[in-house]
C-alpha cells in the first residue's frame, strides 16, 4: 500500500467523522414550544412577523432591546426580544429566522435573519401603482 493512499484513507476517515459531527449541528428549525422545553439551549425558530402586534424599540431606554411578536411554523404566537437594534425596514419582513432561547414565555434572540419581498415582485407592484395614478 502506498503512503499517499494511507494518508488519503486517514483523511477520508477524518472527513467522515467531521461530517458526521457537523450533521449534529444542523438541527431543523424548532417551534417556540419545543424551545421552551430546554431554556438553556439555543435554537433556531422560523416564522412570520405579526404585523398587527406592537413593536417596541426605544433606544433612549435601551438601544439593544427590540421586541415584537412572531408566529412560528405551528402558528403559535410569542413575544420576541432581539438583543440588538431594530433593523431598517423591518415592517416589510416576510420571513424571520431567530437564534436564541426561550425565557419565561419570551423568546430572547441574539441574532436574526430576515427575508424581504423580492425586488421583482416590488417592481410589479410599483408599475401597477403608477398605472392607477
Amino acid at each position, binding site marked *: 500500500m*502506498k*503512503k*499517499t493512499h494511507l*494518508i*488519503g484513507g486517514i*483523511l477520508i476517515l*477524518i*472527513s467522515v467523522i*467531521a*461530517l458526521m459531527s*457537523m*450533521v449534529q*449541528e*444542523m*438541527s*431543523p*428549525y424548532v417551534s417556540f414550544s419545543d424551545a421552551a422545553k430546554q*431554556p*438553556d439551549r*439555543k*435554537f*433556531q425558530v422560523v416564522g412570520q412577523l405579526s404585523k398587527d402586534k406592537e413593536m417596541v*424599540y426605544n*433606544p*433612549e431606554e*435601551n*438601544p*439593544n432591546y427590540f421586541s415584537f411578536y412572531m408566529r412560528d411554523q405551528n402558528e403559535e404566537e410569542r413575544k420576541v426580544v432581539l*438583543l*440588538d*437594534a*431594530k433593523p*431598517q*425596514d423591518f415592517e416589510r419582513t416576510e*420571513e424571520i*429566522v431567530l*437564534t*436564541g*432561547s426561550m*425565557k419565561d414565555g419570551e423568546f*430572547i434572540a*441574539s441574532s436574526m*435573519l430576515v*427575508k424581504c419581498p*423580492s*425586488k*421583482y415582485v416590488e*417592481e*410589479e407592484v*410599483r*408599475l*401597477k401603482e*403608477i*398605472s*392607477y395614478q
Partner: protein
Amino acid sequence: MEYINEHLLPGQIGHFCIILGFVSSILAAVSFFAATNAKEDILQQSWKRIGRLAFTVHGISIFIVIACVFYVMINSYYEYDYALQHVSDDLDFKYIFSAFWEGQEGSFMLWLFWHIVLGGVLMFTAKEWEAPVMSILSFIQVFLVSMILGLYFYFGDEFFKIGSNPLVLTRDVRDAPIFSNPNYTSLINGNGLNPLLQNYWMTIHPPTLFLGFASTCVPFMYAVAGLWTGKHKEWLKPVLPWALFSGAILGLGILMGGAWAYEALSFGGYWAWDPVENMSLVPWLILIAGIHANLIAKGAGYSIKSTYLFYIFTFVLILYSTFLTRSGILGDTSVHAFTEMGMEWQLVGFIMAFLIPPLGMFFYRMRSIPSPKREESVYSREFWMFIGALVLLFSSILISFTTSIPVYNTIFTALDMPESWQRRPPIDVVDHYNRYQLWIGVLLAVFSGAAQFLRFKEQDSLSNERIGKLVRNIGYTAILTSFVSFLIAWSGNINAWQYKLLLWSGVFSILINMNYILSVVKFNMKLAGSAMGHLGIGILMIGVLFSGANKDFVSRGFMDASMIEGFTEEDADKNILLPKGLPTKMSDYLVTYVGDEIDGFTRTFNINYKKLGDDGKVLEEFDLHPNVLYNKMMTKIEASNPDTKHYAHKDIFTHVVGLPISEVDKEVEKKQLDSLKYETHILKQGDTIWATKSYIVFEGFNQKPTNEKYVSKSGDIPVAANLVARKMDTEKIWKAEPIYLIRESFGLSIDDEIKELGLKFKFPKVNPQDRTVTIAMAETKPRQEYVVLQAILFPWINLVWIGCLLSLFGLFFSMIYRIRSKRKRIADS
C-alpha cells in the same frame, strides 16, 4: 395597439446578435472539434480557420449585444425591462456599469465578455493546443449564450424557458393597465440601482471576480484537451501560467468582496461564511490544490491524475456556485443571492454537461495516464506538496458540505422525504466554519513552510548532511517560533489553546518562510513566488487570529448587571445611544455626535472621538463620518454605510444602527405633529402661561410682525402677540410671535414655535371687547436628536490584507516568471 415613443431598433439588433452569437459558437465548437480530430494537416488548418472565423463572429455578436444593452440603459429606454429594473432618471452616470451587471443577464454577459477576451488570447498563443481548447471554450459559450437566449418552449400549457433575454420589452413580460396607454414610456421611470450597490466597489469587484470565474475555464480546457488528445504530459507546462493567473485574479476577486463587505457594508467584518462567499472560495482552494499537483507532475511525474481532477472540478465548482447563487435555492440563507428566474434546470444541465463527459473521459483514459512506478519518498517535496493539496481538498469538502444544505433540502422535498430529513444551517455559522477550518490553517501553514526545504525526487533515505540541514532549518525555526509565540500570546491576550495553536503555526509559517527566503531563495526568482505566497498565508493567519479573536465592541457600556442569563455581553451589548452634543464615554473614548448633514438622499453624521489620558488630557482626536441612505420618498432608510478609522495596527469601525423614529420616517414625524394637543388660554397683557419647564408672558401686541412664516400681502391686517418665555434656572429668554391675520375678511392664525423648549403657539382670536387674546399652546416632547451607534475595534486587521495581497502577488509573480522564461527558451532555441 400602436405604441408611440418606443425605440425598438436596439432590441431588434440585439435579438439578432444573440441568435447569431449562439449559432456561431456552435459552429466554432464543431469546427475546432473537427480540427482536433482531423488526421491530415491541411484539413486541420482549414477547420481551424473556420473555427477562428466563427469564434470571431461570435465575439463580435456578443459585443454588439452588450453595446445594445448599454445603449438602452444609458438612454433610459424603459420600454426595455432590463433598463426599467436597473437604471432610473436620477441614476448617476458613473454607476451605469454597476447597473449593467447588477442583474443576472448582465453578469452572464460580463462572463461571456471575459471568455471572448480569453479566447482571443488563446487563439494567438495556444499553438498546438488551440484547436481542442477553443473547441471546449466555444462549447462553454454555447451554454453561456443560452442563458441570455430568452426562448420559451410550450408543451400544451406547460412551458420551458431557456435563458432570460436582456432586451425583452417591458410590456411583453409585465402585465399592468399602464400599457393601454400608447405613450406609456413617458409615464414610467426606472427602478434604479439598489442604494447598497451604489459605490465604487460595485464598479470594480464584479469584473474582477468574473474574470476570475472566467479564467478557471482555461485550466479546465487544457485538462480536457489533455484527456482528449491523450498527451498527458505535454499540457502540464502551458497550463501552469494560466492556472497561476486564474488563482491570482479569482483570489483578488474574493479578497475585493471581503474588502467591500468590510469597508462599505454594515455587518462588521470581512468574511461571514455566507454561502456565496464560500462557493467562490471553494473553487479557488481546489485550483490552488491543482496548481500544486501540477507542479508535482511537472517536477516529479507524480499526480498527473490529481491535476486532471483538480482542474476539472475547479470549473465544475464555479458552475455549481453559479447554480447556487442564481437558482434561488439559497433563499433565506444568503444575503447575496439573485432572485430566481425559473432557470434551475438549465443551470443543472450546464453543470452536468461539464461534469459528466470529462469524468467519463478521465475514467476511460485512466490506465494510460503515466505515473512513476517508484513510490515517492517521505523526504521528498512532492510527497508533502501532495499532502498539502489533499488538505485543501479536505477543507473544500467541509465547506461545501455545510454550504450545500439548501440543495439537500430541495432534493429531499423533491423525493417526498419526511419533514424530519430537512436540515438547517448551524446556529452559529461563523463559529461552525471557524472551528473546522482552524485545523486546515494550522496544517497548511506548517506543511507549506517546511516542505520548501525538501527536494523533488528525493531518495528514500537521506544523507546525514541533508538530515542535519533539515533539522537545523526546521527544528531551530520551531524553537524560535515557540519562544516568539509565547511572547505574543502573553502580551496580546491570546488565551484559548486553539488560538495559541493557530498563533504558533502562523508564526512558524512566517519565520520558516523568512528563513527560506534568506538562506535558499536569495535572488532566485523561480522560487521567490512560492516563498512570497506562503509567507502571505502566515501573515494572513496572524491577522485573522487577532482581528477575530480580539475583535471588541467598543460601543459597550449600556447594559451592566441586567445581563440576561445564558447570553454573553457580546450578544446583548453592541450598541450605544449618543444624544446630540452630549459627550458619552465608550470604552477608552469620549464620543460625541456633533451633527449631521443631508445631501440628496444621503445623511452623513459627524461623530467625534477623543481618547483621554488618565489626567483627562486629550491624547488623540478624530472624526468619523458614517452615513445612511434614505429611499426616494425619504420615508425609510435603505442602507447604512460605516466609516472606519485606520491605524497601522488596528481599525475602529463605526456605523449608525438606529435613529429616532421621527428621523427615519417623515410620515411618523408628521403624525406626531398632527397629534399635538393644543390648550387655549385667554390672556391679558402681562398674563402668564405655565408650561412644564418654563413660563411664558404675553407682553403685548405688535403691528409689524417679524415672524418668518408670515408673507405679507396688500390688504392684510396682521396683529402679532409678543410672547416671552423664561426658564427658572437661566437668565436666557426666548421669543415667539404668533400672528392673527385678517386677510380678505377671513381670520387666520400664523403659528410660531420655540424649538428648544418644545413650545408651539397658535393665535386664533383677538377679543377686542375685553382687550384679551386667545392663544393656543402645545408642548412637544423636546426634539429627540440622537444616533444609536455601533463601533467595533479590529486589531491588526491590516495583516489580513497584507497577507492576502502578498499571497496573490506570489501567484502573479510566478506566472510572470514562467511566461518570461518560456519566451526566453523560445528566443534561445
